[in-house]
């Protein structure tokens, strides 16, 4: 959509006669710039492309002809990885844990951020700083005690344990981000709703959350990727191989004796792990990029 709109505007200068001389002198610079840009693009895409191609080859083909398209695409590698190597169930585990944690994070995070941003009460600043302080500490600091807290609660190696911990660690940034967002919303609408007899919950769910939609979408994308890519927390808190999440399971496969030599199977697993992210990226690339980078500067 946007690219279609951009195109005519961008082409204009080159057709206008006044710019023509400038264009000629710039040609060498343009070429060097393009060479460098293409070079980095190749460096980024080549390993990924290699992995996808290899996932459709036999082990022999991977070794002898790394750059050709496979003679016959071997989708059985994919089904072997999905079934025998359990990538399928790891995928499902990830979906369950990340999906639930995301919903919980958005709900609790939005509630806390909204209450702290739009209501004044004693202890407000303290609570806000308490939440934001979580951003300062490396997760490694909490790792050992966290393991025992989770074990004490009987949640080690369970979905609910992971979901709760994921949510707890996603809260500081979610609260921080949405707090700023709720503050920036105009208060006239909320006041009008209060005068019309709306309750606190009504104002939140009918007026403020719809207004905050862009912020909620950004932070949801940010959290989804962050949670989907978790590795350290499941590694420590989720020792049961049947419950491995995707990244954890794939990493374990790559070092396990049985699969170490099964290159095509591992490449297939790798490709299966990358494809949904790629698909989501192709569909929403603009939102994802702006969402993630906006998250960083805040």
């Amino acid at each position, binding site marked *: 959509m946007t690219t279609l709109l951009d195109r005519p505007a961008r082409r204009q200068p080159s057709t206008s006669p006044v710019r023509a001389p400038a264009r000629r002198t710039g040609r060498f610079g343009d070429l060097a710039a393009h060479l460098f840009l293409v070079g980095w693009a190749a460096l*980024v895409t080549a390993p990924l492309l290699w992995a996808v191609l290899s996932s459709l080859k036999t082990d022999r083909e991977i070794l002898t002809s790394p750059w050709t398209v496979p003679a016959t695409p071997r989708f059985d590698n994919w089904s072997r990885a999905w079934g025998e190597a359990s990538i399928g169930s790891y995928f499902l585990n990830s979906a369950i844990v990340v999906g639930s944690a995301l919903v919980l994070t958005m709900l609790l995070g939005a509630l806390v951020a909204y209450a702290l941003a739009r209501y004044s009460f004693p202890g407000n600043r303290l609570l806000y700083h308490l939440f934001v302080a*979580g951003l300062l500490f490396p997760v490694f600091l909490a790792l050992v005690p966290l393991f025992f807290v989770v074990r004490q609660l009987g949640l080690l190696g369970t979905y609910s344990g992971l979901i*709760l911990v994921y949510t707890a660690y996603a809260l500081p940034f979610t609260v921080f981000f949405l707090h700023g967002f709720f503050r920036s919303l105009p208060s006239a609408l909320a006041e009008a709703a209060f005068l019309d007899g709306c*309750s606190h919950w009504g104002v939140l769910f009918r007026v403020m959350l719809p207004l905050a939609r862009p912020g909620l979408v950004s932070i949801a994308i940010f959290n989804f990727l962050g949670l989907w890519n978790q*590795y350290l927390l499941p590694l420590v808190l989720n020792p049961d191989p049947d419950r491995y999440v995707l*990244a954890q399971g794939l990493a374990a496969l790559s070092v396990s004796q049985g699969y170490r030599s099964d290159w095509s199977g591992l490449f297939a697993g790798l490709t299966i792990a990358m494809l949904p992210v790629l698909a989501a990226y192709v569909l929403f690339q603009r939102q994802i990029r702006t969402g993630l980078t906006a998250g960083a500067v805040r």
Partner: protein
Amino acid sequence: MAALRHGKYRFLAGAILPGLLLYAVFVLSPYAQAFYLALTDWTGVSGQVEIVGLDNFRRLVDDPLFLAALRNNGLLLLVVPAATIGLGLLLAALVNFGGRRGSTMVGGVRGGEFYKVAYFFPQLLSLPIIAVLWQFVYHPNEGVLNGVLRAVGLDFLARTWLGDPHLALWAVAGVLVWSSVGFYMVLFSAAMESIPRDVLEAAVLDGAGRLAVLRRVVLPLVRENVQVAFVYLGVLALDGFAVVQVMTVGPGGPDGSTEVIGLGLYRNAFTYGRFGYAAAMGVALFFLTLALAVVALRAGRREQVELS
């Protein structure tokens, strides 16, 4: 109105308490406990905890593997942020000002959008998955890196990337840079796009060349983003756990040449059961991270004073 005010505190409790409870149990209390555990000799058996003061920290200073980890994280800290920010700035500048279009003659290159899309993608993959991929790329015989080098006649450059103690850490740093550049390129690019056109036009009218415009106008205006990038990348370099744990031999090898603090912490806690000692490593890592943030913020403040 009184009714509404009465309802206010009920509402606030309902909105804040669930999140706060979760946060207190799984985040705040472990952080607080870590500082206490670091002063004990706990091995995980309940009832057998003795406070040993700073003993754990004294042992850390004599632990050759921990010292190797400090060195390696230090090297990553020197290399990864600088290389990533440098490449990110260069690529962003090329995409935004590499072409000559528009009245300023400093316009974006054609296909700039495509480059951003391609560069950004690795950011979306999790580090362990990237590490699995690069483990294959670096493979001495079947890996694509040596394959490409041999194909273009550079056989003498082919190496056992992860098996050579002098190269393994650089291989790790390479993966971290590879995976991060796109993100920071897009971040810097957005900052560059938001620079008002007339500022650039004014500079060009004053006779500034393209490089001068970049150095004197663009760079100062994206400085704040560079600072943010430095903090984030510094934290990444002080971590390095996922890539090292999945990709390197050992992991952490060969000969501790890719050992990082997080890996030592993980091994001491969950392989050897030295929980007190591991907690001390966590505390050390915390203070390093804190120092990094303070240094970055201080540097920022000084620059702002200079500007005004």
